């Protein structure tokens, strides 16, 4: 949520502060419900073009529905229920399914990846067999948690027994695996070029990926929040406008190459954004992982 506000230049009102929302679902969303729609708020600082945004003013109700869709899809049940009261908007029917998703999301956000995997095995026995890439991300997060807790021996054992197979099957996975293992090479992994793996937002990213897969397994038509699609569309439109040399007022300004931005992740302010590691740094890690 903080991300949204940053970019729409909205000041959070009635919220306990954006920082508290970073790793957990917001307790109250009244600010969003009351906030001015983003397009009109941006109009005060028109930079590029005559202001046409009054024509694009979306009704507040639509915005509220988008927010509700986001909360339900991402599995923020408590927030959804609060929002239901504050914005006077009905909860969608299938909220009952949210309980399991919340249980799993909570487990991941608190670093209990193994537990999360076991619940998924129990409830959706086919899911992680069908989506091996997602399974790798869960196991990768499990590895990250071991490294975070400095359980090096266990991390090595886990990597060689469970993750090496994934790396063999898919070179893309191997590369991701090598980046993760690289954390072990640093005295203080939090200062390493790969520190972003240890960030809370990385847990969020895995949780969202799993959440989308669970929705799909329940035959939901949309596994992504509509807001995410809308943002992608907006970014694409802006890019097209730039390409065609049309002057216009930018509504959104952030780096679309960072997938974290597009998937509506709350940004943490604790970790400074790290520049991507230069590729030659990987060379000395090119050896076999299990023999380290």
């Amino acid at each position, binding site marked *: 949520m903080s991300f949204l506000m940053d970019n729409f230049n909205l000041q959070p009102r009635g919220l306990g502060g954006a920082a508290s929302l970073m790793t957990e679902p917001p307790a109250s969303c009244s600010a969003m419900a009351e906030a001015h729609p983003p397009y009109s708020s941006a109009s005060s600082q028109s930079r590029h073009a005559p202001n046409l945004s009054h024509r694009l003013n979306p009704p507040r109700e639509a915005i509220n529905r988008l927010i509700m869709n986001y909360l339900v899809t991402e599995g923020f049940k408590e927030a959804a229920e609060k929002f239901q009261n504050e914005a006077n908007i009905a909860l969608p029917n299938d909220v009952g399914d949210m309980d399991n998703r919340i249980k799993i999301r909570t487990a991941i956000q608190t670093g209990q990846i193994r537990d999360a995997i076991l619940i998924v095995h129990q409830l959706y026995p086919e899911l992680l*067999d069908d989506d091996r890439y997602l399974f790798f991300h869960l196991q990768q997060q499990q590895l990250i948690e071991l490294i975070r807790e400095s359980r090096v021996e266990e991390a090595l054992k886990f990597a060689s*027994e469970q993750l*090496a197979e994934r790396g063999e099957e898919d070179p893309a996975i191997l590369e991701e695996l090598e980046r993760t293992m690289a954390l072990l090479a640093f005295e203080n992994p939090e200062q390493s070029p790969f520190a972003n793996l240890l960030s809370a937002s990385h847990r969020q990213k895995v949780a969202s990926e799993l959440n989308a897969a669970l929705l799909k397994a329940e035959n939901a038509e949309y596994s992504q929040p509509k807001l995410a699609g809308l943002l992608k569309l907006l970014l694409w439109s802006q890019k097209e406008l730039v390409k065609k040399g049309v002057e216009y007022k930018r509504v959104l300004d952030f780096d679309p190459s960072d997938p974290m931005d597009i998937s509506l992740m709350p940004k943490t302010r604790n970790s400074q954004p790290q520049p991507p590691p230069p590729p030659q740094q990987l060379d000395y890690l090119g050896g076999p992982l299990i023999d380290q």
Partner: protein
Amino acid sequence: MVVTVRPQEAAGSPARESRRLETDTSSQPSQQLMDVESPSGYLTASPSPAPVSAPMSPLSPTLVEDIESPDEEVCLPAVLQLRSRLIGSNRQKHLVIEQGLVTRLLQIMIEPKFSNEFKIAVTHTLGSLAKGLDFHVKALIDHGAVPVLLNSVVDTDPKLIEASLGCLRSIFQCANARSEDTLYSDPSIIPHLIGLMPTSVNNQISVATILTSACKTREHQDILCQHGLVPSLFQLLGSPHSSVQLPGLQCLTILMFSNENATKLVSEMSLNDQTMIERIETFMDRHRKIDLQLEASKCIAYLYRCGVLDESDKRITFKALPCVVRMTKKEASLEHRIFAADTLSYLIEISAELQRIAAISNHLISSMASFLTMDLSQEDKRALRNISADSSSHQQLSMNRYHMAQIKQKVDQTTNLSRDMKRSAFKVYAALGANDEEIRKRIIDTEHLLPCLLECLEDSNLDLQTAAIGCLHSLSRSVQLLRTTFQDHPVWRPLMNILSLPTSTVGMLIVASSTLCNLLLEFSPSKEPILESGAISLLCQLTHKFEPALRLNGVWALMNLSFQADQMIKVQIIKSLESDQVFRLLADQDVNVVMKTLGLIRNILSNKNHIDNIMGMDDYGKQIMQAVVLILESDRIPEVKEQALCILGHIADGDAAKDFIMSNEDVLKKVISYMTHHSTRLRTAAVFCIQNLIWAKERGATERQQRLKQMGVDKILQQLFESDDATLAEKVKGALEQMP
């Protein structure tokens, strides 16, 4: 790089032994390898860049023991643990199968005393095994998993049914499963499966997927239709979930393929004022998922090809056709592009109008060109090399079977993809260029097309080879291409090779020989080299084939070959074909074969000198006369008899050859009688023959005219002079001029 492996014996070692290893080393995982391996167990790198190999630790013997336990309370937790190990790991699946646990799991499924909860856990475990490599699925089938699971499907517990159907779906989805016979072995299975569809969303998906994979023959289609699958699928298409709609459409498509009964059923079906075809149509809307749009387009294509829809139907011209053309673009995924191209070629294959509409697209031909340049990535090439490296490395025994299968499956997938793309492109080009010279010109401008085509004509994959021949066949219909491109690229060489190989399928032979017919046209530069490489005996062999199309193409090609040919070639054909075979061909049930055989004889008997020489060869003249009489006395259609009369006309064009007719009163009478036949074409042909016989400036003309006058020919000619038919009238006028 250091690679560690464990020899085969360790994986299959006795339970006690491996338990010791596990307990010994579990606390010190990094040393585990050292302890169990002899020093030589640490291998220095194999020459190939092998992937990072982790040790394949065997299942814990306690776990195995617990699974074997007859006590559910012991066994169930063990099975749950096993399931967690299996999910997502092909290697673990491999171990479980190697250790023979499948038999035990299946035993549990059929043991009445065990609870359903237990059986569901076992079913999920089997389901996970079914998501392994292809040969893991095969192992499951070989252990008899399909009948056991079908047995659970008739249970009363909906959860067990759902789990069993899910597992069956995974098994049937494997392309090499081939276990559909089990489904049809008991007539009650299919109706039961169809009856389960409405019970849950997952069951809808599972049953539709199973039946899609199990519908392999016309017979299967009919059985499924009889049991009311069509209305059940209609229900699926009405589902709000696209995850249900897609398998529903897929099942419907396979049910309708080239099956008039099924398509008729579908066209007559309607629900709540909406026909089934209208429902299918809605899935082609642009807001639908791509898979749905493509699958629905395929449905429409099948409906059209079975005659339910007309080629000008808006659902074809405005929806299905644009959809599949659009999806061949580079922006789409490879799988979608192949699917779209295959549907497109099938859709337009027999309609010149649809071919014309498809060719309006400005990107189609270049999109197809990009299909041809798809090749294996560098990495896959390396993996391919590694297969051979792996198999030569004895130290990697334990991993060998698993690794080989794993790499092979992956490489197979990529090579299949690249091959499928070429195959699809050739089929589209073949369909597009079937009728229109302009389109053919645009196709031939495609870069790399001809070299790629030549290469694929010799590919080991029959499907790709067949598609390549088809494409060549379409292109060979262009006179211009025959004169230019086909001279620069010796396409005839692989073609001749295909025709002489015993491995070639009938379908390949038919299209290849059709193409050869075109390459042997008189003006084709390829004609000479083809002749030199032994075409005549090859074509004569074709005329002996069982399939009428092959006999036809054989004779057709010989006919083209003999057109305005040197006498030497004609004599070669006569000797090679042998007169017995000529008579057999003239008695062929296929009238086209008879027509082309007569055409061949006409071509052989052209050019005055050739006629006299060839008619004078041994018994040949006599045999030809017999053949002609045979045809004239038969009850063949006028078109055939016309050809026979024309042969007589050709003979009458010779000098010495004229005697064959003049000396044969019987034949003369026949020709004269055809002058008054009710068929104009036969009258014309007979007059043509007479005209040649009475040609004035030739030696002996007066005698022949005299003789024919005696037989009343002049009077008949006078009568025919009144004819309305222009051609006939002209011929009669010409003949009368010859007669004083």
